[in-house]
């Protein structure tokens, strides 16, 4: 393959595959979140023991958000992934505390790896909002991504799972966690573990970002029945689930950058020093422009990855890595500038910028940081 073919952009279709229905999704999500999740609500939930609002969660389920891309036979709306990415973008902008990302990761795993019977058992309660589900995608600190450090051993007609998985989103509220584990033959199985489970410790983590809860899962020889293994599990499925997760997280982070931009812009128009709004000074104006540029580029990558997910699957993995890599660094830079340009106020608890700052810190390495994905991309080009 020549370098040029490899580098070619995905075909995102006429008008970026964006239709009136997409606009409807975006606009109604924006309205819903403006009503249900102003910053005061975000701050309230930071101190909430559960970490999300049950009635908002029910409403999201009723609006059909959870099943956006789930096939209709499984109770979903079977919309294209661009709809889902737009929902994530809006949630990232509003900083909605919820286990939505956790559930989407679990749903992806179930959709791709479950038999129809397994899917029929586990998917409907997730879509209805009754059951929170999640995926234990992070390896223990320091391990290689995808090493599937957790092990599954066949025993007594089922399996026994042993291992530790940190940073499992929403795990403390979840009734179901999908755990990737290495099997004796070296393959990777995805195991649906119902919680609580006597041999699964769920230790709530204290995150710098209390708007998104996570826990550490310790699987101390947890027995699960044979039917807990998602039958169509494979390494390739795990990779597809991760690609989807990266796409959605990148969209959420792009929304976060946009929120930081908007708040910094507004402050620069309002705060006066030396007799004029600080936004009149190029030392403030130009960095805000740079944040705008990064917000737009992050959005293009994330939405482009969402379009490729269904329209150009062969390029989805690559684009999802680009989107996550770019968003990780751009969000980090945007919040750094955001705090700095708010001056002394930006450094306080009262200033809302801190909320996105912490989300940026906590999301930066989830599902792989920029360096990790750039290394993969470089290898694809034939590099190191």
């Amino acid at each position, binding site marked *: 393959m020549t370098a040029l073919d490899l580098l*070619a952009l995905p075909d995102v279709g006429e008008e970026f595959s964006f239709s009136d229905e997409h606009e409807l999704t975006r606009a109604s999500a924006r309205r819903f979140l403006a009503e249900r999740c102003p910053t005061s609500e975000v701050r309230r939930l930071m101190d909430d023991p559960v970490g999300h609002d049950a009635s908002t969660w029910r409403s999201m389920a009723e609006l059909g958000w959870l099943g956006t891309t789930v096939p209709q036979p499984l109770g979903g709306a079977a919309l294209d992934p661009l709809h889902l990415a737009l929902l994530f973008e809006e949630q990232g902008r509003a900083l909605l505390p919820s286990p939505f990302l956790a559930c989407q990761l679990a749903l992806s795993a179930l959709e791709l790896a479950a038999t129809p019977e397994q899917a029929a058992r586990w998917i409907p309660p997730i879509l209805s909002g009754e059951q929170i589900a999640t995926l234990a995608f992070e390896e223990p600190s320091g391990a290689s991504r995808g090493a599937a450090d957790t092990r599954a051993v066949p025993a007594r007609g089922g399996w026994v799972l042993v291992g530790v998985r940190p940073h499992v989103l929403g795990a403390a509220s979840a009734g179901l966690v999908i755990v990737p584990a290495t099997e004796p033959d070296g393959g990777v199985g995805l195991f649906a573990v119902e919680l609580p489970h006597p041999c699964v410790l769920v230790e709530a983590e204290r995150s710098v970002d209390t708007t998104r809860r996570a826990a550490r899962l310790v699987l101390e020889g947890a027995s699960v029945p044979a039917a807990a293994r998602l039958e169509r599990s494979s390494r390739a499925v795990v990779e597809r689930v991760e690609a989807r997760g990266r796409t959605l997280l990148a969209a959420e982070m792009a929304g976060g950058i946009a929120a930081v931009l908007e708040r910094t812009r507004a402050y620069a128009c309002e705060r006066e020093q030396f007799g004029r*709004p600080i936004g009149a000074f190029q030392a403030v104006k130009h960095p805000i422009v740079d944040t705008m*540029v990064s917000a737009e580029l992050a959005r293009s990558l994330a939405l482009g990855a969402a379009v490729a997910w269904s329209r150009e699957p062969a390029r989805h993995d690559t684009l999802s890595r680009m989107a996550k890599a770019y968003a990780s660094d751009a969000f980090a830079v945007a919040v750094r500038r955001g705090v700095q340009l708010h001056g002394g106020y930006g450094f306080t608890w009262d200033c809302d910028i801190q909320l996105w700052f912490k989300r940026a810190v906590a999301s930066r390495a989830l599902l792989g940081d920029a360096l990790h994905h750039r290394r993969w991309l470089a290898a694809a080009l034939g590099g190191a």
Partner: protein
Amino acid sequence: MSQPDELEAFRARAREWLLANVPARPSFKLPQTFLEVEAREQLEWLRDWQRRLYDAGYLGFDVPEEYGGRGVDRERRRVVTEELVRARAPFLVNFIGLEWAGPTILTFGTEAQKRRMLPPLLRGDELWCQGFSEPAAGSDLASLQTRAVRQADGTYRVTGHKVWTTVAHFASWMILLARTDPAANKYAGISYFLFPMDATGVTVEPLLKMTGEGGFNQVLFDDAPSPADSLLGEEGQGWTIAMTTLTFERGAAETHARERAAALLAQLGRVVELAREREREGAPALADPVLADRIAQLWIECAAIGLSMARTRAPALNAERPFALPLMNKLVSSEWNQRLAELATELLGADAALWLDDPRAPHGGDWTRGYMNSFGMTIGGGTSEILRNVIGERVLGLPKGK
């Protein structure tokens, strides 16, 4: 608009024609872009290429047929551009005419102006240059001092001094900004002319670039006559029209977005090839993790720019800040291009010093030359600093500085 199957047939024909017709490189050094056309032999070689492309029916897809174009057909234009990039065809020498002057004349010209100016512009028979900047009016364009005085017979007499005038030495026409009403405010006093470069009283003096190449000039006007029908739009409307030209110049026109993306990808592809080919400490440069990381970052940004250009075709996706993408396009791609070009020189190690006339210069010294020429894009057509002001104020509504 073409139907999909018609379009694919058109693509096949274009590809075949290009395969047969893209000329071999000449014995003399070609300029890298339209900004550096210096010698008559370069001009004629490049003009010949533009003529053949036009005569074969592959140029003019944004101009109606009555003005010499092929009828407005964005899809065919896109296909041709993609095939030109793939075939590594030479650039089009009348770039200023095709991209800046042409669209402006199409928007603001009289019927007579369009019929007169556009056909030879498309074919490259008449080249265009741009007379906007002056020695004291660069970033602060509206402070320009060139005067055009209306005569009793409706013609004008022009006196003044323009600089950084690309291809003025070969151009038949200039899009010229001049002050017609010194008493009016600095914007309202400006008019826009389609000025004949063969007028008496016009002197073109070449300026050398830092690369030692020519291609741009200063142009002195000493009471030079401009015909009555040389005014584009109304007297005093010049600033508004100039802003439209600058929008074209900054790549705002969404029709061009996809082809620009293809061009950026092609540049990146060449640097990736370079990184595979060049060795560093005994291994390909691309095997160096730090260099590979930087290339990967440029790839990501290139994809982001390309996808953003594609997003300009979905107005609903950009409703909140409709001008954000068009206005940031030139800023982002010119800075990206400069970083890419600088990285290429770094890949060369000490050989980056070998210049055009050294037989061992990697790729004839074009990487180092390209890095220097990249400043033409971050400075010309509004410096990056000015563009950040424009975006901050016009897109984000930040207060104006004083």
